[in-house]
């Protein structure tokens, strides 16, 4: 079957090999504690990656979503504090909507002025971050002020256990939210017309228009989706780390894009899958986190991420070139 020749399979194999290697260097890799920690680290980057995946399938790129995430998180937390609101659901809805609205802004510029997404999103990201820091504030909302219900929500674990050293650890329930969103994204990309229109637009924008897709709607959807996921992930991040920092996520967009590229999505559009992205996210998080386990100085993290991006893209480029011959 073609499934065995698909890039997801290759990524999965590389991932397994990497896991075995890391496990050989330090068996502590396989400890439940470490695995649970890894999975936890997947959540935020993973949710954002789903949004970036959709953008990339449409043939675009987005570097503004981290700014949206921060804005959604900070504004929502500030709002909760201001109104003394104590629920959980509504804040997440609000954060998602903030992200969505900002995403609509991206779509508007990209569609109306036909400018390349990279440059538009560089601009919108800078606008949103600048406004947030310049008008709303630069102070961090710390654990003592952070709404406790958010923290409690993010503290929910699926499994609890105690490590050999006596510390408690568990598998965060947030991983379910991540996997749920991944499933929804997958179903939606595969089984809805708008999902297919994203693939069609990414493959041949002009043809998509001629066939009768409403490409404005497609683009609007794509960037709103990425914005909404980023907004949601932003507030979730605040809840999981117990603070709302308006300077959070600086440079994080590169990690997310790297994860999506690792997952086999094409920057030229039209190709990419949720499963690949899940694997790509896991691979990136695992390598980054395992540097400590492998006794590599953490200052090397960025170098490693960079090498992974270059390596993965070089591999894809090499694979695609062979295809052409």
């Amino acid at each position, binding site marked *: 079957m073609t499934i065995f020749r698909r890039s997801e399979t290759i990524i999965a194999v590389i991932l397994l090999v990497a896991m075995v290697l890391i496990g050989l260097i330090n068996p502590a890799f396989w400890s439940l504690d470490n695995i649970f920690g890894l999975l936890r680290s997947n959540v935020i980057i993973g949710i954002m990656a789903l949004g970036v995946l959709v953008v990339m399938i449409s043939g675009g790129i987005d570097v503004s979503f981290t700014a949206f995430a921060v804005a959604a998180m900070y504004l929502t937390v500030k709002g909760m504090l201001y109104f003394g609101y104590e629920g959980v659901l509504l804040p997440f809805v609000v954060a998602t909507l903030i992200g969505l609205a900002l995403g609509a802004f991206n779509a508007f510029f990209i569609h109306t002025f036909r400018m390349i997404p990279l440059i538009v999103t560089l601009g919108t990201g800078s606008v949103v971050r600048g406004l947030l*820091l310049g008008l709303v504030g630069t102070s961090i909302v710390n654990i003592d002020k952070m709404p406790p219900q958010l923290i409690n929500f993010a503290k929910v674990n699926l499994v609890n256990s105690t490590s050999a050293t006596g510390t408690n650890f568990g598998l965060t329930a947030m991983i379910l939210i991540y996997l749920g969103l991944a499933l929804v994204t997958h179903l939606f990309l595969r089984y809805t017309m708008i999902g297919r229109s994203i693939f069609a637009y990414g493959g041949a924008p002009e043809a998509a228009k001629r066939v009768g897709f409403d490409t404005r709607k497609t683009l609007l959807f794509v960037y709103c989706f990425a914005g909404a996921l980023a907004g949601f992930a932003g507030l979730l991040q605040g809840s999981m780390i117990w603070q709302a920092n308006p300077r959070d996520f600086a*440079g994080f967009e*590169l990690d997310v894009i790297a994860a999506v590229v690792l997952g086999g999505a094409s920057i030229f559009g039209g190709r990419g899958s949720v499963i690949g992205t899940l694997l790509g996210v896991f691979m990136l998080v695992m390598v980054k986190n395992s540097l400590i386990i492998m006794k590599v100085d953490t200052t090397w993290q*960025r170098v490693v991420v960079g090498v992974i991006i270059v390596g993965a893209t070089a591999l894809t*480029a090499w694979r695609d070139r062979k295809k052409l011959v």
Partner: protein
Amino acid sequence: MSDSSIAKRILGQDRNILQLIAITILVFALMSWLNPDKFLRYYNFESITYIMPELGILAIAMMIAMLTGGIDLSVVGIANLAGILAGVFFHSVIVGTDQSTGMILLYTGLGILMALGIGLLAGLLNGFLISKLRITPILATLGTGQIFTGLAVVLTGGPAITGFPDGWNFIGNGKIIGVATPFVLFVIVAGAVAVLLTRTTFGVNLMLIGTNPKAAVFAGLRKDRMILYSYMLTGLLAAVAGVILSGRTNAAKSDYGASYLLQAVLIAVLGGTNPAGGKGRVLGVSIALIALMLLSSGFQILRFSNHLIDFIWGGFLLIVIALNAFRNTDR
């Protein structure tokens, strides 16, 4: 007649340049009107001539990458790495050795060579990845940008490197016949690049390759080599900017000038560079640079925070995109 033809040659048939000049005058008038006392002081313009060059050189570097339809997201990483490498070098040689002016000068020279060398090398890596391995420029330079910044972190361990020699300080803060050294360097770099792009086969080849890479191959242009050279030039210029930046602040840090990336892209695009390749002029980029420097210095005088200035730059980029889109539909 010769006058008008010279003017024509410089301005070209470029309506963009005229639009830019108009924007610049508008910004100038607006700022002078809002805050005549502080904005129109000599000191203000002098300080602009110190701050502007590093960004201007980065913007020109960005333009060169865009000429072939690429982009270089690693320029800030290269700039910082260059400054830090020189800083590390000074630390390792200057501490404990004699501090005679001759030696200092020698070390400064060696430091510059190292910084520029690493810039060339970084550009070579980018160019190799893009032209030989055929990685998309966005992804290639996204990755190498991480590598360069990461190496800078590894070299410093995080905090800023300080303690550059006096000669280094002169590059960032000195004066040559009453004009800021960085500004002199900027004029030299801008002039050299302008001549390189318009008067040499290399420059013309870049424009042609950017216009249609496939046709370039059939026309017998050495496409891969030219793209490689163009990224080397971009890297070299980024390193020059890094030297000026570390000279001006007398320090080098892995996360300096993070907002320069956006600003360099903005200035390049605003200056009439086509991000899809084939079009771009140093003159346009320089005027765009001046307009934006006036804008941000004016807002600084009005006590806007740096964050709000980031906002204004981003907003400016979006407005320019919109403006260009409207202008193109005119035709």
